[in-house]
């Protein structure tokens, strides 16, 4: 039979292009056969092949027992294959792990260094807590192995052991510390220890403070850059605990920054200074200024250095760390950072994006948002198909297939390579940008926004660039999750939020919502391809309904709401639309000043007929929410049209005739009760239940008759009272009354006082679409039409009374008689103060100026507002909240959890202060031990009596013989015992006890002293059983001594 080697397998793969799957399946079949063979070479080769195929995703968990077999081969070559297979294929649930334990222990104790390395490498991959306990005793002696490579690997392995079994550190840490303190230790071992301490350090920095002097020496004298980086990272976590370190660290760190040739070390030095809080600590001193200048200067240098994107990236990382604590240092570098937003490299862009979110303020918000918007608008969209073409899974399948061209694979690796394609602007990046824009703008309830009209325009523009959502809009009621994540919902929420909170721009917000809702403008307002941005309709629909009286074109809005395509919208949006329809209708029909003319009657009847026509099919809509609303509105509309047709019309030109009250009073009253105000999340919970409020007894026991009566009553008679009772808010509601008007209302600023802000830091035509721009320009022109000084389209001026000069200018190209221009007395005092804000000067004026005061309603709440809630507020930055919360609880994929270490103190056992918990635990252990001892004593006495009874019947000779055997054994033991019985060496005793087992059964002699010196409460229940024999042993020792 011909067996394939790994080499044959790989060659075979390369020769079977196109049929790899079959080839692999066949090879695995062969391996299954080979691996069962008794020939270890064959077995090992098969395992090697399987491990190779595992790399491509072919399962080999079925071979785990064979892995063990190969691991236990005496030949190093096989062992190595076995260990590699174990590392690559063993998973948490691999059952043979228990059996591997002994093999690991055996190989750790091997005399050959290369063999010891194998388990040292493998243990981190396969370890579990129970195994950790067992291999620990074998690992510890390896810390003093003669080979440095073994020592350093042992240190690391012990660290990984500690991650699953924190108790490891109790015996191991003192030994590791000893290695570290040893100045003659091999430098690579020291470096490995420093690496481990760096990993441990951020969990429990206080435990490593005593080591600071030694670590400092290593930093100063060390010439290993990798270790120096780790040391600096470690010190950055120590300095907050020990401020004195800062003074000590500063000179060497400064020296390194100035002298080192390694950029990585330089960078980490700066990073360490930033992260360790050293900048704050030395602030104000001359040293401090120097170091701050040095650090920021170097970081800036990294940003502007040509051709090294990596430095740019890490510099941004560093800036991101200090942006919260040292915003001024970062904002000095604003120019270079902002350039990174447009970097071709998406990684750098992302970092810059994260960074600018932290550094926005009133002054730079428009500029930053402008840049981002321009990016979204101008960058070509990447089709998603293009993206998947590069995806490996998009290819014909996974597999270790041969390369199309072998010579490719022979290319020397020496040349580092980089591809040349331009970067795409993928959808998820777009989504991130939009979210960041929303986040920046809405921060602290719009603290940074001075011009809300601008913000509304930005939102409208964002809708146009929002990428298509992956889930096609489904009409079923499986809502949420993805829906909420959809970025267009975030935009819509912002629009809604502004409409509600900022009264002064409500007309503009409604206008924007209206333009979004209008069906005939849909092509224009939304992305031309895909279903992007449609989520915003849900919110736009609400706005046009709620603020219907602001609508400039209610007829068209109504037509769009009732458009047949509306029924295709997602059920959630459709439900909102249904609610908006009667609201808009109410505003259109509700005017009671207009006489009820035949013309009006016809219009209303027609409109209601259209609404009914739209609603009827929806009363059987699959979504319950839609269905319910449709039915309700349908009934209301039928009633209204009855009322309308029943009311006699007046003469078109004659006297005033009252329109039907149902239209003018009842329906509007349904929707216009109280102003909606933003309410803080959680405010509802704070509403106190008034005393004496009884929620259990029915308000009216005769509810049914009451309802029946109400049904019989006509609508015409006293509908006003009925509806007023339902619609008007109770004047003195016990709980909401004190908070009914927002405090901010009283601070209302008249609208005309506001000044338009500067737009100079970003030119709008770069990021806003032409139609939005045209509208903005028109608005501005309208606003300034009477302003004689208005020349610049980006003027800064509010309207002023018409002056004679102005009228002449407005007269246009007509010939101007210069003499006709009246000479005015110029009030110099007045104008000189004016000229500062003159539009011509305004261009060069610094953008920094007092922010315009726009009234933004805050959230209403009761009692002290609780800050924890505000971060979770749905209406502010909601998009990422859900996923972040989910992420917090979920462990990352590759994460190695070290949280267990947090609870373990590395202080020496005796000297370390014991926590209350420790003490309690110890007491509990002692109590249990006492109970166990008593139980053992009782059993012992019972057995003793029993054995006495038995022995009485036994022959004397036999007893004597046994006695002799036992004596001999005791002699042997005397040598062993003094070696290591200090208290914690229960294991060694355990071994002895086992030896003892054979002849111990016959010994039941009464032993008086059962106080056990070695007893320290470390062994639990297991000990109980062994107890008896052990006491026998100890007693004999006592006798021998």
């Amino acid at each position: 039979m011909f067996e394939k080697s790994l080499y044959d397998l790989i060659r075979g793969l390369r020769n079977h292009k196109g049929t790899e799957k079959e080839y692999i399946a066949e090879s695995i079949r062969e391996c299954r056969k080979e691996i069962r063979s008794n020939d270890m070479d064959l077995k090992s080769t098969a395992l090697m092949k399987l491990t190779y195929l595992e790399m491509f995703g072919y399962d080999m968990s079925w071979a785990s027992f064979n892995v063990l077999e190969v691991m236990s081969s005496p030949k190093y070559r096989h062992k190595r294959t076995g260990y590699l297979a174990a590392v690559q294929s063993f998973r948490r649930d691999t059952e043979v792990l228990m059996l591997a334990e002994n093999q690991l222990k055996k190989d750790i104790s091997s005399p050959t260094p290369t063999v010891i390395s194998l388990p040292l490498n493998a243990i981190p991959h396969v370890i579990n807590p129970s195994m950790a306990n067992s291999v620990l005793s074998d690992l510890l002696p390896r810390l003093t192995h003669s080979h440095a490579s073994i020592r350093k690997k042992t240190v690391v392995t012990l660290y990984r052991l500690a991650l699953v079994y924190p108790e490891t550190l109790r015996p191991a840490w003192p030994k590791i510390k000893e290695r570290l303190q040893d100045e003659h230790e091999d430098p690579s071992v020291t470096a490995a220890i420093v690496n481990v301490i760096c990993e441990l350090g951020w969990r429990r920095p206080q435990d490593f403070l005593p080591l600071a002097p030694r670590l400092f020496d290593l930093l100063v004298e060390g010439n290993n850059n990798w270790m120096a980086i780790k040391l600096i990272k470690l010190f950055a976590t120590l300095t907050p605990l020990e401020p004195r370190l800062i003074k000590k660290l500063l000179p060497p760190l400064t020296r390194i920054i100035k002298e080192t040739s390694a950029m990585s070390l330089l960078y980490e030095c700066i990073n360490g200074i930033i992260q360790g809080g050293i900048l704050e600590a030395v602030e104000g001193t001359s040293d401090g200024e120097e170091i701050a200048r040095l650090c920021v200067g170097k970081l800036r240098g990294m940003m502007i250095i040509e051709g090294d994107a990596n430095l740019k990236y890490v510099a941004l990382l560093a800036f991101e760390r200090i942006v919260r604590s040292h915003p001024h240092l970062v904002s000095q570098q604003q120019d270079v950072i902002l350039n990174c937003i447009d970097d071709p490299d998406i990684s750098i862009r992302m970092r810059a994006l994260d960074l600018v979110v932290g550094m926005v303020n009133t002054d730079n918000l428009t500029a930053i948002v402008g840049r981002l918007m321009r990016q979204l608008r101008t960058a070509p969209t990447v089709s998603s198909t293009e993206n998947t073409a590069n995806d490996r899974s998009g290819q014909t399948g996974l597999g270790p297939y041969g390369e199309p061209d072998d010579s490719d694979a022979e290319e020397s690796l020496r040349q580092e390579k980089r591809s040349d394609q331009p970067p795409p602007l993928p959808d998820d990046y777009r989504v991130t940008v939009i979210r960041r824009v929303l986040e920046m703008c809405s921060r602290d309830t719009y603290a940074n926004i001075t011009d809300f009209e601008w913000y509304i325009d930005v939102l409208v523009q964002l809708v146009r660039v929002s990428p298509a959502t992956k889930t096609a809009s489904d009409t079923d009621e499986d809502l949420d999750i993805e829906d909420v994540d959809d970025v267009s919902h975030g935009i819509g929420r912002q629009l809604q939020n502004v409409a509600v909170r900022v009264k002064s721009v409500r007309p503009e917000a409604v206008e924007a919502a209206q333009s979004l809702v209008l069906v005939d403008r849909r092509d224009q307002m939304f992305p031309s391809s895909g279903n992007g941005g449609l989520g915003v309709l849900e919110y736009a629909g609400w706005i046009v309904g709620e603020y219907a009286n602001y609508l400039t074109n209610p007829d068209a809005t109504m037509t769009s709401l009732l458009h047949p395509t509306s029924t295709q919208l997602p059920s959630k949006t459709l439900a909102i639309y249904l609610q908006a329809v009667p609201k808009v209708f109410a505003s259109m029909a509700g005017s009671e000043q207009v006489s009820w003319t035949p013309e009006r009657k016809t219009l209303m009847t027609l409109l209601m007929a259209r609404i009914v026509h739209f609603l009827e099919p929806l009363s059987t809509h699959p979504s319950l929410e839609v269905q319910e609303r449709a039915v309700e509105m349908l009934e209301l509309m039928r009633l209204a049209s009855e009322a309308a047709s029943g009311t006699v019309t007046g003469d078109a030109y004659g006297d005033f005739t009252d329109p039907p009250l149902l239209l003018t009073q009842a329906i509007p009253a349904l929707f216009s009760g109280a102003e909606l105000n933003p309410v803080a999340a959680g405010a509802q919970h704070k509403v106190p239940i008034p005393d004496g409020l009884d929620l259990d007894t029915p308000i009216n026991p005769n509810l049914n008759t009451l309802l029946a009566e109400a049904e019989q009553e006509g609508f015409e008679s006293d509908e006003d009272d009925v509806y007023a009772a339902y619609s008007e808010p109770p004047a003195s509601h016990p709980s909401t009354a004190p908070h009914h008007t927002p405090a901010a209302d009283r601070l209302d600023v008249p609208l005309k006082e506001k000044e338009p802000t500067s737009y100079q830091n970003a030119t709008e035509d770069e990021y806003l679409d032409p139609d939005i721009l045209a509208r903005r320009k028109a608005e501005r022109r309208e606003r300034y039409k009477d302003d004689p000084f208005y020349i610049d389209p980006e003027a800064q001026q509010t309207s002023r009374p018409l002056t004679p000069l102005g009228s002449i200018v407005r007269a246009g190209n007509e010939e101007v008689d210069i003499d006709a221009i009246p000479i005015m007395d110029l009030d110099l005092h007045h104008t000189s103060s004016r000229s500062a804000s003159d539009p011509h000067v305004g261009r060069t004026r610094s953008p920094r100026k007092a922010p315009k005061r726009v009234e933004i309603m805050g959230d209403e709440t009761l009692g002290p507002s609780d800050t924890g809630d505000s971060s979770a507020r749905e209406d502010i930055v909601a998009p990422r909240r859900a996923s972040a919360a989910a992420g917090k609880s979920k462990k990352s994929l590759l994460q190695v959890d070290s949280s267990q270490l947090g609870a373990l103190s590395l202080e020496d056992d005796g000297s370390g202060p014991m926590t209350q918990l420790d003490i309690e635990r110890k007491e509990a252990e002692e109590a249990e031990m006492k109970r166990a001892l008593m139980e053992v004593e009782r059993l012992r006495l019972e057995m003793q009596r029993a054995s006495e009874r038995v022995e009485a019947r036994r022959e004397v000779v036999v007893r004597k013989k046994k006695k002799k055997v036992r004596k001999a054994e005791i002699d042997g033991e005397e040598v062993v015992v003094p070696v290591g019985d200090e208290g914690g060496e229960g294991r060694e005793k355990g071994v002895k006890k086992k030896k003892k087992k054979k002849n111990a059964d016959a010994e039941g002699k009464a032993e008086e002293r059962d106080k056990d010196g070695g007893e320290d409460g470390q062994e639990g229940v297991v000990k109980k059983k062994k107890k008896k024999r052990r006491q026998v042993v100890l007693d004999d020792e006592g006798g021998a001594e």
Partner: protein
Amino acid sequence: MINAVLVFNNNGQPRLTKFYTQLETSVQQRLISEIFTLVSNRPNSACNFLPLPPLLASSSKSSTPTTPHNDTPSLVTYRHYATLYFIIISTSTESPLALLDLIQVFVQALDGLFENVCELDLIFNFETLHATLAEMIVGGVVVETQLDRVVEGVKAQGKVAKRPVNEGKSGLGLGGFGRGEGVWAGR
């Protein structure tokens, strides 16, 4: 610490996978695939750091600036040599620039072992590839960064097999490294 070291070629075929946590095989493959998608789209001038792949990104957003470190992998560093991508996934306790150097040491060590190493060497000697990595990183912690000691450590385990003769090696000799000779000299 280092969470994973991956090597795959320009077509996304893995040449070395080493995860320092136990991970389902299918998840491993998905992660490789995601990273490959990210890495293969990078332009020439781009930096050597990748945004987090979707599989890892979901859970890392919770990291806040108040805690400088945590256990979550937050850094994906890569380097591209000829036909191969070398990738290291690590937490924030590692220095990004130092990891780039670490990859360089790794490749230099392989070059020292195979003499003008190329992808074929690694395909046929993937055990040596693993052994080399094991000399440098144990359980996600770096134990050795000195080139000669790494090479020495691998050689101590036995003769390093050469690529089969008949696989031929032609038209090579692109000598010299792009970056400085000294391991730590450049960056």
